[in-house]
């Protein structure tokens, strides 16, 4: 009898193990680890291809960019980045290669050169057309040349021509930018890939100006320049990126966190550290984001100066006024959540969007009013007008948010037009527009131009950037123009935690009407101008020029909830200072930013000239100036044919769904199939969308939870529980049967 029991148990066990194995056989992870929630699932059929592609990416000759290394030096609040890009011509012909790559939106590119063999050819900044002309001429003459152009403040194109057969070229690019600061937290971001952007508008009659996958349209006339091609799905980029960051914070470093990547951290002294990627070079498919926390409670967080002999001096100061402010005594607010539910938000970002937006709704005060507008190709409003933030309305609003799913294109401009309306006389309350989006659109300028209209003065804009590689330019400028601030939710972040931080910030009073009394100091060309409003824990970063040296007590005044507040700090502007030579460049970039913001989307000739002059004087790349480097010593070689190839980019993390088999050969996102991109994206990405009721109070409904941390908990059993349950059932049944048999025997 015992033997029979054992046999039955063995049979059941074997059967269950087999079943479990069979159930798991469809999906595996690349590294062979157990499949867990949040990991990419790869069908077996595709695994072989992907594994093969990891070992031998694709036919070798498709990869021209071999390696990128970024060496970063952070001093105080300024980061200098030295990029080294190694290109290789795998062909027996001369090669021209075009590489579209991202940079931080506030980066000032101030050095460019390329090396071929032992020879280094340095670039100089010239007017954009002039530089392009020289490049084309060099191309015709067979001379080696490099051209670095700005397409957007955060998208650059490097063209290298006449790379000899089988030769290697190393391009070196340097840029500086200031860090983002939030309280004691300093954020350094290094973008690695330009994510595919939705291109709205009608195609223009002329030919495309660039070589990207999108056609130029009336809304995005340079669409073909900002839409680089991608590695086919299932394959990986031919090059990795290595990042090393040396931090000299000037203040005690309390903690360093790798937001998006695992880090190896070596602490030097109390104020210095060196950080590198823990697992070596990585696939360039998402931004590298590093955050560190510093100690110290002084009002002046950082002060840097630079002054050459007989020249004007430059200074940069970071001030964080210390005031004991109480949470705002509920000034009634109108809050609009403008939620991007386009196809590019699919996956982790849409789950995080739900978590973030739901939490924000939960923090509203009863006297606040709110509305929710979700947009992709269409607009879907929770209510036709602002609703009072009653518990019922909030619960219904949260139900509306939970039902949101991502698909379709990113028609952001109509959504903003819908939300921003001139205030009527009775609408004199503060209005906060919180835009949760990855901002992956090509029509940045019309959007920013609309936000810049003076009749929308009562609105403050708070963009929240989502995803692995958001459009940082649009996010930052929208916040700046809209007198708000931005936040970032990386795929690895806890959306609810960030929502808490965000809600806390907008519930503290804002310091307005800022003014500075410089005392005896002769300060000029101070930026930003006018001074922005100051939020709790957000420092004021100023950069300016001075004529004469001196020291003085500087007084910053402002207005918090109707009360005048004053902060004082000492500032010493030296007669000579050779350090911090990047300050003039940073000042020029800030000045260009100010000029551009005023006329965004419609830059006048006079402003273009001013920007050009700044670019040429400070030798930085702008919309109207480019770096050009031409080898002039050696005569050109025209003996071989010239072949032109773009550098293919890695598909940004979490965006594989935007690419399918039919576009594999082209490496284009699925919305690039026809000349008229916008409606095609809508069709191609269209999935069954559960949209909440279009008007008035939405029915609380939730079709699925997001994958976001902190949003929805799934109390769920796993494979072990299933196995144990069936075993229990089997053994219990067998025991009962055997007992009965025994009884009757």
């Amino acid at each position: 009898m015992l033997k029979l029991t054992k046999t039955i148990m063995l049979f059941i066990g074997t059967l269950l193990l087999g079943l479990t194995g069979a159930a798991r056989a469809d999906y595996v992870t690349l590294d062979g680890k157990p499949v867990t929630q949040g990991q990419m699932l790869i069908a077996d059929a595709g695994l072989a291809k992907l594994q093969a592609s990891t070992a031998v990416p694709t036919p070798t000759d498709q990869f021209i960019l071999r390696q990128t290394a970024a060496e970063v030096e952070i001093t105080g609040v300024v980061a200098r980045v030295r990029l080294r890009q190694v290109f290789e011509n795998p062909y027996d012909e001369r090669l021209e290669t075009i590489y579209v790559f991202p940079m931080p939106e506030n980066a000032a590119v101030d050095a460019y050169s390329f090396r071929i063999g032992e020879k280094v050819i340095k670039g100089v900044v010239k007017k954009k057309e002039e530089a392009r002309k020289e490049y084309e001429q060099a191309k015709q003459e067979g001379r080696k040349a490099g051209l670095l152009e700005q397409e957007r403040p955060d998208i650059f194109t490097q063209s290298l021509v006449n790379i000899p057969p089988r030769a290697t070229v190393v391009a070196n690019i340097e840029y500086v930018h200031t860090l983002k600061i939030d309280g004691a937290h300093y954020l350094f971001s290094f973008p690695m890939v330009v994510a595919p952007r939705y291109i709205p508008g009608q195609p223009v009659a002329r030919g495309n100006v660039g070589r990207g996958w999108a056609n130029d349209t009336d809304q995005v006339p340079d669409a073909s320049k900002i839409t680089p091609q991608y590695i086919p799905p299932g394959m990986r980029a031919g090059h990795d990126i290595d990042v090393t960051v040396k931090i000299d914070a000037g203040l005690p470093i309390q903690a360093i966190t790798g937001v998006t990547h695992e880090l190896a951290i070596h602490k030097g002294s109390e104020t210095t550290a060196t950080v590198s990627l823990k697992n070596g070079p990585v696939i360039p498919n998402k931004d590298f984001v590093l955050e560190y926390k510093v100690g110290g409670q002084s009002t002046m967080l950082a002060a840097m100066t630079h002054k050459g002999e007989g020249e004007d001096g430059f200074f940069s100061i970071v001030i964080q006024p210390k005031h004991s402010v109480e949470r705002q005594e509920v000034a009634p607010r109108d809050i609009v959540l403008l939620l991007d539910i386009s196809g590019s938000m699919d996956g982790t970002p849409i789950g995080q969007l739900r978590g973030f937006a739901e939490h924000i709704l939960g923090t509203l005060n009863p006297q606040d009013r709110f509305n929710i507008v979700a947009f992709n190709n269409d607009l879907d409003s929770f209510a036709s007008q602002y609703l009072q933030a009653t518990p019922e309305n909030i619960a219904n609003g949260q139900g509306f948010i939970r039902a949101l799913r991502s698909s379709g294109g990113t028609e952001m401009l109509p959504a903003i037009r819908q939300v921003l309306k001139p205030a009527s006389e009775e609408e004199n309350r503060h209005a906060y527009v919180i835009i949760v989006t990855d901002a992956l659109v090509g029509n940045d300028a019309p959007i920013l131009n609309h936000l810049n209209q003076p009749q929308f003065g009562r609105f403050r804009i708070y963009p929240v950037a989502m995803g692995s590689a958001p459009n940082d330019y649009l996010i930052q400028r929208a916040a700046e123009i809209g007198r708000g601030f931005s936040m970032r939710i990386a795929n690895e972040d806890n959306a609810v935690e960030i929502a808490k931080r965000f809600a806390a910030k907008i519930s503290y009073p804002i310091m307005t009407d800022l003014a500075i009394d410089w005392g005896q100091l002769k300060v000029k060309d101070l930026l930003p101008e006018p001074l922005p409003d100051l939020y709790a824990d957000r420092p004021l970063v100023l950069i300016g020029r001075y004529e004469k040296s001196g020291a003085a007590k500087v007084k910053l005044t402002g207005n918090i909830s109707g009360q005048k507040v004053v902060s004082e700090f000492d500032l010493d502007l030296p007669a000579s200072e050779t350090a911090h030579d990047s300050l003039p460049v940073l000042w020029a970039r800030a000045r260009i930013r100010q000029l551009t913001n005023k006329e965004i989307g419609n830059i006048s000739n006079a402003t273009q000239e001013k920007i050009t002059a700044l670019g040429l004087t400070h030798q930085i790349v702008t919309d109207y100036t480019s770096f050009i480097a031409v080898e002039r010593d050696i005569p050109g070689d025209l003996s071989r044919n010239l072949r032109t190839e773009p550098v293919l980019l890695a598909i940004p993390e979490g965006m594989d769904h935007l690419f399918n088999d039919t576009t594999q050969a082209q490496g284009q996102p699925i919305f690039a199939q026809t000349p008229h991109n916008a409606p095609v994206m809508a069709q191609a990405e269209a999935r069954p969308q559960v949209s909440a009721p279009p008007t008035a109070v939405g029915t609380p409904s939730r079709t699925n939870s997001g994958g976001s941390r902190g949003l929805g908990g799934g109390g769920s059993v796993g494979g072990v529980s299933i196995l144990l349950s069936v075993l229990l059932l089997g053994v219990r049944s067998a025991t009962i049967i055997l007992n009965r048999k025994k009884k009757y025997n």
Partner: protein
Amino acid sequence: MSAAAFKATLSQFKITLLTALVLCFFNAGSILGDGQARWFQALNALMEYDRALILKGEIWRLFTGHLVHWSAEHFYLDALVFVAQGIVFEPKIGRAYAQVLGIAGGAIGLALLLLQSDLAAYRGISGLINTQLVLGTGLFVFDPNLKRSIKGFYMAVLSVHMFKIAYETVFKVPFFVTDALGDMGLFTPLAHLGGVMVGLYYLLGSIRTEAKARPRIEMPKCGFTPPGPSRD
């Protein structure tokens, strides 16, 4: 089997079967599909554990959140395991079964509320499954009437499960989860741990009660073993 015998057999699992029917009803939205089940989805939204709304007074969500699920797959897996284990354990746990599930539901909800402030919403019956598994296997393990080999089996099941819970609690990742779970939100080890704690609490209570009730047998000094109760 006669009708009376069948009825008697079913009555042993009546709470399990009743709960299964209730689960089927509340999860009809997931079963029928998104487009045809708006009413059920609305109902589910009223039932799910929602931290903000619980704090505003909707305390029924502490209990009802266990009865709704995020997706059809989530529901099927949970319901399958719940019914399978209920059939095994309900007769063993006996009259206290319904009470155990009710207490566990409230305790798990309360634990999530007090200890996991970043959890906005929660759905799923797996916490209760943990309670019934720990209590049920524990009762078998401590059943003096069972053969040692059978006890060993239940002990092994309990050990594997406790290891799983410890692993999940420490590493915050599901242990050997099936890929069918799909997009169902945050993995919530605290709910499982809460379920286990309630199960252990009842188990200890049961052992103590039984020890008090059991007549003390004096062991003879000569090594004579008194006749034990009849073997299962």
